[in-house]
């Protein structure tokens, strides 16, 4: 047995290194897919955030692109089941985006309807015109600084001037509708601001960055290990050839 010990050792080494090489190769393939997914998720989340802000600032004509990006993000999540931390962060990010979009799209409409009401106020009696302009100024102030004080100021102004403001109905603008939109703005402006702050301060980007860094270094280790195995196999094969040549020469 000792006579074939060298060959057996060389061949077994080739076998073990070969199996290890395959293992490292498969691991690096999986790692590469994971890395690609993380990079895609990072790109898509950045795009969604920008698109969400566009919608928030009323700079988007329709939301098809936003919807597609959300779908794209969710599609990537389906194959990321093992990365639970990232998945839960993305899900919460997505939920905040959905909630924000629902509120902000209506806020944009409410603000637009209120802005268009100025025309109706201007065509009204002097007192109603003044009341309307004051109300719109208060709303503008609230939009810039949605504090509790500004909120209460608007509510008390409306309560004091309800009968005057109701005269707007005679000019073709429904006060009930405007009032509902004002209430909506007063309730939801700070909700929308909180949601966008949550999105901006989300730990998702930081975690994605860390996960990408970790995955990249893991991938590098796997690639190096695979290369080491390949070099080892080449050496073993070279040793085997050398052994054969030596034996042939001896013979």
């Amino acid at each position, binding site marked *: 047995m000792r006579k074939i010990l060298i060959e057996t050792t060389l061949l077994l080494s080739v076998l073990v290194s070969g199996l290890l090489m395959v293992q490292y190769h498969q691991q690096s393939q999986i790692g590469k897919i994971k890395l690609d997914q993380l990079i895609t998720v990072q790109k898509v989340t950045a795009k969604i955030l920008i698109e969400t802000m566009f919608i928030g600032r009323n700079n988007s004509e329709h939301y098809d692109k936003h919807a597609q990006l959300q779908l794209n993000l969710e599609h990537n999540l389906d194959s990321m089941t093992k990365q639970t931390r990232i998945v839960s962060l993305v899900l919460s990010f997505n939920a905040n985006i959905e909630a924000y*979009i629902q509120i902000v799209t*209506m806020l944009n*409409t409410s603000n637009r309807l209120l802005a268009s009401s100025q025309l109706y106020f201007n065509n009204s009696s002097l007192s109603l015109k003044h009341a309307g302009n004051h109300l719109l100024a208060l709303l503008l102030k609230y939009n810039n600084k949605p504090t509790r004080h500004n909120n209460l100021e608007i509510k008390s102004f409306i309560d004091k001037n309800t009968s005057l403001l109701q005269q707007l109905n005679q000019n073709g603008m429904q006060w009930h509708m405007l009032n509902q939109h004002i209430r909506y703005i007063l309730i939801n402006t700070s909700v929308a601001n909180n949601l966008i702050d949550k999105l901006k301060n989300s730990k998702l980007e930081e975690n994605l960055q860390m996960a990408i860094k970790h995955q990249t270094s893991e991938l590098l280790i796997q690639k190096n290990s695979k290369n080491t195995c390949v070099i080892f196999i080449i050496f073993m094969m070279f040793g085997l050839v050398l052994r054969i040549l030596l034996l042939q020469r001896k013979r």
Partner: protein
Amino acid sequence: MYLLLNKIRSGTGYLICIVIALAIIILIILSYYYLTLPTTKVSNVKLSQTTFHSVRVRGAIQPIPKKITTNIKWVELGKALFNSKLLSKDNTIACASCHLIKHGGDDGFQFSTGVNNQQGTRNSPTILNAVFNFRQFWDGRSKNLTEQISDPINNPIEMATNWPDVIAKLNQSSTFKQAFKRVGNENINQKNIVKAITVFEESLITPHAPIDKFILGDNSALTVQQQRGLKKFIDFGCITCHQGQNIGGNLYQKLGRIDFVPENLQQDLGRFTLTNKESDRFVFKVPSLRNIAQTAPYFHNGSVESLERAVQIMARAQLGLSLSEQDTEDLVALLQAFTGKLYNVRGNR
């Protein structure tokens, strides 16, 4: 063994023995490679074979593509499956039973009837242009058509069956066996059934609606009243939710966001039933308004028969607006302009 090896080593067979050993080793390594190959989940395989040649225009409403490129054989197989009652437990219900393609893509009933005459609690949404919705179902529980297909098949009050039974029944049908062979000698399995139905449903689009012609530059495509309706649709704020290619279907919104909704529309809690989140109470996917004139009755529970009433409810609930008779008529006239023509895959090939 030792003697044999020794004999081989001393003889000419030494080299052959080494080569054989190496070959065995390579074989083992290769087997290990194939055994450990990372598997791809069936759900992640892209089943769609359709390319939509979309045109973008300035404005909130986008036109439906006039042309698609698809695989006609898969479309035909999908159509056969869509119309097949073998996809239900007792062979009484097909997808087409609740989605009548030539009649707006739904069945016109408040609730559709499933196996054993059971009825659901939500109105059948139209299948036409469903491919452009960002989610499927009223509560958006499915991301796309592919994911959606299993739901009615497994739902006990719809088709009440399961994939193994469906596959077994289709395998007994010589027509379907041949049909699957025609698309490329494909097996009858869940993936291929879903693929065929998906590809067929993707072909169910309705371009050439007057609104599409209008936004593409044909000013005569809308009547004066419809143009007035479009202006009101934009000015009142309907466009906030009903925009994009499908004039809706691309976001969630709360029913009754601004004002009250009739009580009978408040019994269904919408996405809340899925997520249990308070903020999702009464939140639904905004339905597409395409072909709306053909898809009465309206709302998630199909409780409103007329388009006029539906428009008035929505104006009040979502915008706090009481519509005048003239406003309602103008808006309804516009909604008639959202009706397109079913795309003919063969004719446009």
